[in-house]
């Protein structure tokens, strides 16, 4: 929510924001660069027993234990297929905690003017399960990129849609 508000404020000024464009499944997502602490190659993830399935475990980032979650599983997509292009993006939450998310690929850095980002409403029915993790859609050079709603991604809840799809 905060991010939306922030984006709204910045949009009025027409501020430029850099996004890292990643690929999850077949879709491209942008992550505001200011929330990214680090991008690391896929490494061995130590499983933690008895936690939510989307939490893949913990990794060691410069001596700190950082939990890693699967965005795919959170979004209700299929299991991650780890390839040479897979990366773990280490996000820094507002509370200062580090959280890693697994992405299939990191494509590029994109600079978008806030005016080019179109807000997406949460109750967009076409969005199916994914929409609750997207806060907007950015236009660039004729392409489209969904802006990830990081608050929703790192929240401890799983996609409701996923639960209802499963049943």
């Amino acid at each position, binding site marked *: 929510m905060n991010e939306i508000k922030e984006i709204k404020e910045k949009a009025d000024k027409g501020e430029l924001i850099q996004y890292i464009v990643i690929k999850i499944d077949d879709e491209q997502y942008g992550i505001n660069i200011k929330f990214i602490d680090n991008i690391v190659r896929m490494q061995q993830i130590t499983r933690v*027993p*008895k936690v939510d399935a989307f939490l893949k475990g*913990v990794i060691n980032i410069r001596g700190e*234990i950082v939990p890693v979650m699967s965005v795919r599983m959170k979004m209700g997509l299929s299991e991650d297929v780890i390839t040479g292009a897979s990366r773990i993006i280490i996000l820094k939450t507002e509370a200062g905690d580090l959280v890693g998310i697994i992405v299939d690929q990191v494509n590029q850095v994109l600079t978008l003017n806030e005016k080019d980002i179109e807000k997406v409403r949460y109750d967009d029915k076409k969005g199916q399960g994914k929409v609750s993790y997207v806060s907007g859609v950015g236009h660039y050079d004729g392409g489209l990129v969904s802006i990830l709603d990081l608050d929703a991604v790192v929240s401890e809840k799983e996609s409701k849609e996923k639960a209802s799809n499963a049943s």
Partner: protein
Amino acid sequence: MDVSQYLSVFLDEAKEHLQSLNDNIMVLEQDPENEDCINEIFRSAHSMKGMAGTMGYTRMQNLTHDMEDVFSDVRAGKIKIKSEMIDVLLQCLDAIQGYVDNITENQDEGTEEHQNIIKALADIRSGNSGATAAAPEAAPEASEPAESTSQTAEPGTDPASDYRAIKLDSSARTTLEEAKAQGKNVLGVTVHIQESCILKAARGFLVFKGIEEVGEIVVSEPNTQDIEDEKFDFSFSLVIITDESKEKIAEIVKAVSEVAGCECGEFDLEAEKAASEESAEPASAAATTAPAAVPTPEAAPSPAPAAGKAPAAGPAGGKKPLGKPVVNRTVRVDIEKLDVLMNLVSELIIAKNSLISAANTSGVSNGNVNEQIEYLESVTTNLHESVMKVRMVPIESVLQKFPRMIRDLNKTLGKKMELTMTGEDTEMDRTVVDEIGDPLMHLIRNSADHGIESADIRAQRGKPEVGQIFLHAFQDGNSVVIEVGDDGNGIDAEAVKNKAIEKGIVTPEQAALLTEKQCVELLFHPGFSTAKQVSEISGRGVGLDVVKSKVESLSGEVSVNTKLGSGSTWIIRLPLTLAIIQALMVIVGEEKYAIPLDSIQSIEDVSPSDLKLVENKEVINLRGSVTPIVRLNEVLDTESSKSPDDDMVVVIARKGDQQIGLVIDELMGQQEIVIKPLGKYTNKCKLISGATILGDGEIALILDTNSIF
């Protein structure tokens, strides 16, 4: 003057003085004639008065001033300590504590004047012969100059504050007489250091250094070692041999910063000799430097007790030896700085582990490398131990308030109780010590309130009239054990059970199956209080469960042994340190886990044929005790790499006096590990208490075996 920067020092010192006052007043209650105590109280009150005055806390200053007055009368023998006085004094301490608490919270002492206490203190003094009226004013005033200028008329002048009072031993005198004969100057020097000086020892050292450049120090009072250890007030005296004039020496001494003043003069050997030999035979031999003759008179007169310590020739006759207790050479360090240091040590240990595993995997098994690695290992281990020790403080600081609490409880509960404590010097991590006070207080109150019976019942049961409450602290391997108990009523398991049923904590059916021990454990259940009526002391519904959760949050455990009619003992076991532990590394399935070594009893090889089933659960008979078996791979949702026919490796873990066997796949060995928090999201798993980073950068999770029981 901006004094805020001194606030924390002030508060620390005020608390120390308060504690010392508390202790000494308690001692005084038992032994009203104890001069050491009276002096100590006077000194503490005096220091507090000074401190409060400096900081501008006038109300606190007034109160301590009145208290000091009372003790100056006591010291002068005008008042005898009586038990009513002790009560007033303790109230007075509480009031001062109140000020200190206020200051801690909002840097302001508050507005409470405590007129009643001031009046009570005044009454104590006026209750005496009228002659005291004016005297007390003079007494405290006199003591201040005593510290700074030493020009007191007291007959037994402290040699530290006046070189003229220094007593020589035979060898020193011989040296001095020889020097004098050679035409050198024998000077006495008394150095006064400013009372605000923080590093007295360093100033002392500089004075020594300066003088040694121009002469020789023959005698110092107190001796050099004590000066280095800051075991002196604010003055020390020297006897030196030099070619320089006394003015020059005084100049050298005064050049050292924070020296308030210096007296320098000819050291009169004849006068000293006369004084020290007093009644002994006239030292005719002394002039001709006959060492054999001197020791005889030397041994007889008053300085004799100190004769063993050569330079410290003992203070003048009659006065007790250097009154001030040994001042520790300490540095106050912010605990956060220590945390940073501890983290760095943790990182270093991880780096060391990485180096070891890197050396192993890259096949550098060159003897020299191994040697260096072993050396590094011993250095890091020592470093860790030292840092840990720095963080360790004696548990005393939390125990100190308990004797007073029991004394007060004696009155409020109308029971006769006595508290004995042992092991106050047991050391624990600072953070643990800070946290453990409340649980201990709760247990002691509990013993006082519920444990110790009323006098009638004790008489009926043939117990001594005075109830005993005890607290024993001791170190046991890598943990610290604190036992709190009493010789009172013990815990009635049936009553606990009925109460638990009544409160709906267990159903009657469940309750019927509980052993006596399990019933007693119900006491730790949240919202359980057996006190028939809520009393002021304990039994507010929050109770033992809070104790339990607090202890567990410190990675400790609490248990209870009780015998109905003869008392109960609560046993708290806490880890010595929180950040770095020794652990057994094990493999379960494909994964590595660390099990804290202090929760492990033993490691056993068990053949599958030894497994028995009891109530459909696997157990083994381990040297006569039936031990439940838990397959860790099942608990941890992973596949075991072993086939069911293989012999099993079983780690026997213990919790209190229960034990449990954990089946693992493989042992990796013992390792020093650094505990890291698991962080958000993943910390919901009760089985895992944290994680650690292994030498190769891999993460191993730390099993909390207590949660498996």
